[in-house]
């Protein structure tokens, strides 16, 4: 069912180096989750080699979100998604599965698209986190957002923040992507309304808008 040609073409492309649906399970995240599941304990990101703390024992962390610094008291088990939405009020980041399958919660961490549901808040400390709200230039839409408006790249709109973040991440790495790279870049973001053709168009237009600005 996957488009083989596209995958072959993008096999060498490093444009989407963030977590993918399949890639995540082989990365460090699963180690942290497994440790939590089996012991209920987790080492905090800062003190990987120091004393263990209980999953529900709150710790103070500092998150840098959209270029602002937030000091927060979080449980080590809290996902970045939960903290962004329910504590920082940044509800542009959506929740669709909480297990790395739908992409609605995609944010940029150090410019790479990542699933906020699979990132613990404590893991994100010291990283540059960008959410949908962070693409705004004051009250003006950023170029990717503007392109999504112009191409009607939305229906219910719930997956769209994640789609926009994936396109933003793509364009930061590859300012002039080809069609196959665009499709690959948003392949970890499910749109149940099926707006994909308009999303592809919007991504291409976003590249043009970004180049002009």
């Amino acid at each position, binding site marked *: 069912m996957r488009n083989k040609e596209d995958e072959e073409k993008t096999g060498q492309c490093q444009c989407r180096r963030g977590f993918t649906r399949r890639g995540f399970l082989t990365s460090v995240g699963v180690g942290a989750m497994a440790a939590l599941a089996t012991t209920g304990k987790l080492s905090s990101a800062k003190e990987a080699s120091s004393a263990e703390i209980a999953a529900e024992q709150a710790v103070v962390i500092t998150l840098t979100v959209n270029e602002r610094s937030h000091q927060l008291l979080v449980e080590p088990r809290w996902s970045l998604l939960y903290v962004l939405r329910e504590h920082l009020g940044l509800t542009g980041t959506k929740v669709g599965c909480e297990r790395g399958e739908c992409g609605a919660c995609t944010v940029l961490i150090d410019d790479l698209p990542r699933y906020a549901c699979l990132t613990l808040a404590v893991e994100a400390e010291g990283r540059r986190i960008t959410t949908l709200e962070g693409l705004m230039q004051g009250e003006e839409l950023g170029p990717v957002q503007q392109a999504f408006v112009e191409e009607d790249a*939305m229906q*219910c709109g719930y997956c769209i923040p994640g789609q926009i973040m994936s396109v933003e991440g793509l364009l930061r790495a590859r300012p002039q992507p080809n069609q196959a790279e665009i*499709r690959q870049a948003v392949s970890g973001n499910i749109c*149940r309304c099926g707006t994909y053709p308009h999303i592809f168009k919007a991504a291409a237009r976003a590249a043009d808008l970004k180049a002009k600005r």
Partner: protein
Amino acid sequence: MKDDEKDLYFVEGIAVPQTPLPGEEPAAWGKTAVIGRRQPRVDAYERVSGTAVYPSDVVLPNMLYGALLRCPHAHARVKKVDASAAEKMEGVHAVLTGATLDGKVKWPYNEEVVTDLFDTRCRFEGEAVAAVAAATPYVARDALRAIAVEYEVLPFVADERKSLAPGAAQIHVNGNMIKSETYARGDVGQGFAEADVVLEEKFRTACEIQAPMELHGCVANWEGDSLTIWESTQGVYAVQAKIADILGLPLSRVRVIGHYMGGGFGSKLQPGKYTVCAALLARKTGRPVKIFLSREETLLAAGNRPPAAMTIKAGVKKDGTLTALQFSGLGSGGAYPAGGTSLLDWLVRDLYVCPHVQSEMTDVAINAGPARPFRAPGHPQCAWALEQMMDSLAEAIGMDPIDLRLKNIPLVSQARQGKPPYTTTGLSECIRQGAEAFGWREARRRTAAGRKDKGHLKRGVGMGSCLWFVGGGGPPATVIVKLFADGSVNLNMGASDIGTGTKTVMSMVLAEELGVRPATIQIEHADTGSTQYATPSGGSKTVPTESPAVRSAAIAVKQQLLKMAAGELGSPVENLRYTGEFIEAVDSGRKVKITDIAALKKQGVVVGIGYRGPNPEGKVVNPFAAQFCEVEVNTRTGEVRILRFLGAHESGRVMDRLTFDNQVFGGITMGIGLAMTETRILDENRTGKMVNRNLHDYKLPTALDVPVDMVSLPVDLPDSEANNTGAKGLGEPVTIPTAAAIANAIYDAVGVRVRQSPADPLTMNRLLAEQGQEVRS
């Protein structure tokens, strides 16, 4: 908005339609200025900036998080629930179990079947057993794990084809039969006798799950005796009615708000047990409670498209005249009556001219989550069987599939009493124009030639056509339009915009009539406390239901403005023309700027009320469509690539070309899911549990599963008989013929009939091997 437009509420130089005198029906629009163009959504900024507040985004002060404990067995009796440990946990504020409710709260599965909210008999995996409210969702889930439940596990049945077998597990006291229906016209025996060719085939479509991206759920908050619910729903009034009924509250004490919502596809036409639990937990704790389900819960217990096992027998003459259609369908809406065979035979009855038709449908219970309406209930399943059969018939008589269909185009609805005519029938235009734009005949010649090639990549083209059995909308709908003293406009409408662009289309209607800019229109909608009554957004009826009411409300505004201006200009109303910026007197040539009308300035606002008038008597309003696709089958791996798709749709007048195309692409994408990837898999031998209850294993189409080459070809036939905007519904026909078109294309490529969905590589490999085609790994 450009700076030079900022103080303009109206659009310069655009002719608005003539205002009918009070009591007169407005004329159908001729050439339109706004309607039909590519208008970006009026709420697009909110949706892409993150400022749109969906129900799942609502966070209230002091809010708690709720969660539901669900039965892990396909069929079980709850013997004992011990929540004492959970109740003592830090951060847990309330626990509800069957014991605490004491049978006082009921859940109506339908009018006849009513159970306790937490019933001791769990007839499907995922049935609710208890609920908690806690300080965080994490603590709420901890609390669920701390509740000890003793279950008596009961025998189960997971396959609708085994539900009525002797010895099958009994789900209800009266057995597993939910409903059986029959239909007949003419005499199929005679029809088969008249046929030159008679074919019979069996088909099945797998159970498919709606899986909207926003999870099902709500936030509930009490202020004294008044309950406010922010629900992710397609219909705030439907939620209000059911919750008020269950909790024994007056409608006026239940306010349901659902401004934005992240998809429903039919599964959010009604509230869930989660809604009731949120309300009860909020009352018990005196704090707002938010419950949004996990993805796993939505896959188990928030609706599905029932599996359908179908047999179809058809007779045709050599010239392509259909003589008889006989259909039997078996479906299951899960453990409770939920429309397991709803509309499953409709296309057989009504899509093609056929004098002799017989059908029987059997809806049975299985131990699985209850169905909910899913985008065009029954129709994609029936199309899977009927449209593949049409292709088989065409092949048997040596006719092109599109010619066979064109030979049997109906102008009346044969299945309805008295065979009423359709207002418009765009079916043959959809097939003809679609085939032309797709390059059908050339493509068929090309694929036929390609079959002789030795290569392992085989191309095929296929098509399917459809109608949707409603789609004309109808009353009731009430809409209020306010025009303020500065000429800007407010629209008040109860309907939800479920992603189809309802708000945008209604703004365009106002812009067309009043000459105002869509961007200056403020919209209040989907709130039982502050907007007008509306039926839920489903059935492809929101645009044809609401848009005529919006047009009528706009006309009511214009009529009042004309009346106000009549005194000022000294001319009778019938001599006045509304132009958007001015009202002009054709007799004297005098004119007054709308915003200078003294009476408007004094009154501050003009209020126009619009009602949806009745549908034409003795006529049927249906949308029609035909879709075409090309696939490439890899005979070594069994993989099917969809190379291109074209959807030709006749839904009356095209209101917004951008959202129209978007719907077409979305429907096709969802149909690709039905054909290629989606199936609920139950462990039917050992546990009855769903084994693919996550989006990794339940495969929704991704960006890599749809072709880049997708074309939307509107067949724009304004239906002036249907209603005053000429629009028909679009949201459902777009997904009806898709899966069948793919199956037909696969047949054209490799000569195998995919009778059972989905056509995944495993299935394709098996079919190709059975047919003797070389399969190498």
